């Protein structure tokens, strides 16, 4: 299928570029870790970090790191105006969107591989007590965040004040993702993990993903053409 081929091509190109320089990966991962430390020191009770805050801190770090990664990735495209070259191709525009989305997801997955164990360690949070559910939560949550983020970052490439506008636009829309992610993670972190509740949040996130990926596919072309 032409669509999948184009998406795969774009994703592979993005990953090749990233693997060569590893700039966005390293800086984003480091930023995420710094974020976690800031929160650890900011949310303190009786001189020790708040352990119940692990779920919230994890997802905030993902949100902040995600915004940074999105901004940097598209800044690269802007620099050589290569996004224009992609738009010039006869390829289906939504396919380009999917390719970029998959690239961002891969990048964020790499960051989360570092982030989740780290937060678990620092806050004594048993993230891996129910690994399948935890991973499902991370995938659907990060997916929803990235779906909307990729669209917004792409459309902001040619806008003024793009650095500050990305979070301004992205955070209100992704609040449901944060709520679901944090509550689902918190359910899994309880002494007896509440799989039922976690599954419910995963379902909500999956639904969010479907709706917003569809909306993004639909609006990508009109938004990218001047």
């Amino acid at each position, binding site marked *: 299928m032409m669509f999948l081929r184009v998406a795969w*091509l774009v994703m592979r190109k993005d990953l090749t570029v990233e693997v060569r320089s590893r700039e966005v990966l390293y800086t984003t991962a480091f930023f995420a870790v710094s974020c976690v430390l800031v929160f650890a020191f900011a949310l303190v009770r009786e001189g020790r970090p708040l352990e119940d805050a692990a779920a919230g801190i994890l997802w905030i770090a993902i949100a902040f790191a995600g915004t940074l990664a999105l901004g940097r990735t598209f800044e690269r495209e802007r620099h050589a105006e*290569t996004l224009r070259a992609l738009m010039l191709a006869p390829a289906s525009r939504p396919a380009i969107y999917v390719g970029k989305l998959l690239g961002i997801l891969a990048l964020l997955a790499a960051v989360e591989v570092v982030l989740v164990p780290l937060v678990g360690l620092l806050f004594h949070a048993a993230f891996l007590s129910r690994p399948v559910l935890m991973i499902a939560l991370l995938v659907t949550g990060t997916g929803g965040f990235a779906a909307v983020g990729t669209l917004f970052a792409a459309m902001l490439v040619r806008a003024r004040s793009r650095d500050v506008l990305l979070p301004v636009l992205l955070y209100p829309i992704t609040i449901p993702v944060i709520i679901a992610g944090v509550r689902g993670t918190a359910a899994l972190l309880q002494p007896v993990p509440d799989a039922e509740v976690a599954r419910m949040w995963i379902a909500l996130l999956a639904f969010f993903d479907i709706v917003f990926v569809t909306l993004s596919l639909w609006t990508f072309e009109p938004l990218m053409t*001047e």
Partner: protein
Amino acid sequence: MTFDFDQVAVRDVSRHYGRRRALSHITFTCRAGEILGLLGPNGAGKSTLLSILATLLTPSAGEIRYGDRTANEAGPLLRARLGLLAHDLHLYPELTARENLEFFARLHGVADARARAAEGLERAGLASRANDIVTGFSRGMRQRLALERALLHDPRLLLLDEPFTGLDDASAAALVTRLRELRAERRLVVAATHDLDVADGLLDRAAVLRDGRLIAIDEGHGPLRERYRAHIARGALPGAQSLEPRAESPEPR
């Protein structure tokens, strides 16, 4: 199924950004087997016009017909027949020359992308540097690579934005030869340029723009620089006539 055309007709195209007019009632026709120049001072609207021809911008008014169809009607099939060599070159600096060409070849759905990319590298004279990252290339090398990238998918219309900038004499001469080859292949070439000395002898016709208006279509003889200056001077007078393009264009030389 491919889409082909042998002329591009620009009809009364205007483009404005809020209050600022970037282009105003541009009308001309470009035919296969000719090299049409876009001349004019900075800010005249040459890049804007090229972007519109490349379907990257939509005009605020007017239309462009490629053959008998507009960009909207032809859709992605049209984009498969367009090639753009823009000022920014559109190359991924972190990829090698070969990877750049192969990526764009595959993206355009070119059959046997690897072979076409290799051919492109040969013609750009970069076969020996095929596996080097583009960041290390000089402007001239990048330009040659970008030109081959624009030609990978066998476009009918080639658009060039300031292609001679930053090129030394040898590279410029090579580019001129390449463009003449393309003309002989009955492609349409539209080049915006400042470099009147190089353009002299290369261009069949030149559309002169100033402040977004088309002030002349030049097909004359004699040094281009002088004719250009005359057009600009005449165009600056209030109430200057803008020459209508002649219905038939001369045979390509």
